[in-house]
């Protein structure tokens, strides 16, 4: 099975996020006062061959620990879409 996996990476909570602040200020300037707590991160999408969704997620978690995210500065979430056979 091949699984489409999405990794969402955001600056670690509590760490200064100047990009998020800049975007928040710009939204305020555009009269979106209802927007707050803005953070800018990155999204990574990949196909993963694995026998189950749980194993695909476990592999991607290892990828995050080793390369995709920096544990000092970033938090991440993994979402696995329905898989395709073959």
């Amino acid at each position, binding site marked *: 099975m091949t699984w489409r996996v999405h990794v969402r990476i955001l600056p670690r909570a509590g*760490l200064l996020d100047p*990009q998020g602040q800049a975007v928040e200020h710009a939204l305020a300037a555009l009269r979106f006062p209802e927007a707050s707590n803005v953070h800018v991160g990155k999204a990574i999408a990949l196909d993963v061959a694995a026998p189950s969704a749980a194993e695909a997620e476990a592999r991607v978690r290892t990828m995050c620990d080793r*390369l995709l995210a*920096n544990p*000092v500065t970033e938090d991440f979430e993994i979402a696995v879409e329905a898989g395709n056979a073959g």
Partner: protein
Amino acid sequence: MMRVAVVRFPGSNCEPEACRAIERAGGEAFYVWHRDSSLQGAEAVLLPGGFSYGDYLRSGAIARFSPIMDAIRQHAAAGGPVLGICNGFQILCEAGLLPGALVRNAALKYLSRPVDVRIERTDTPFTSAYAADELIRIPIGHGDGRYVASEAVLDELERNRRVVLRYAGSPGTDFPANPNGSLRDIAGVCSAEGNVVGMMPHPERLADPVLGSDAGHRVFVSLVSSGSLTPDS
């Protein structure tokens, strides 16, 4: 004569300046390609600045897996001197050879300017030729220079005198005390044993009096004369 390997990655910069600075201090410098696996008998290693792999993903995140990094890890574990300048500092942090990380400057701008830094530790292979608490003015050139680490790590660094360089600012100038928002004004740190040092400023860019100052020269003088200072290995 101290033989120093200067590691080249795709996107390195200032590596000729680093070689010239080492040679001017009386050492011998040669390039090692990042895909090599041997340091060719070097007694010290310098990771230069630049934008290895285009800073893709995170600065230094991909360079840390280059084949030469295994040899550098072994060299460092044996007590050999390793200096990371700018992108080299980022790579050493990503590789886990130094604690913490370097993220986007607080003002979101690339900074290319002189800064004043205080030499807070002189018993390293790269700072022994400076006086304790000496202020020097050397350039920075980075977009991702804000040093961050957990409070526990920062406290450990302070307690064990592992902050080597700190942004100091200068009365009477417009030099920012802290140009990039680094926690505790940290500009450079070292490993627990002191032999691995990372710094964001570029001493190699100001190491010859023809440029108007050679404030960075003694980083390389320190290294070339560090044979007797190399930690036990």
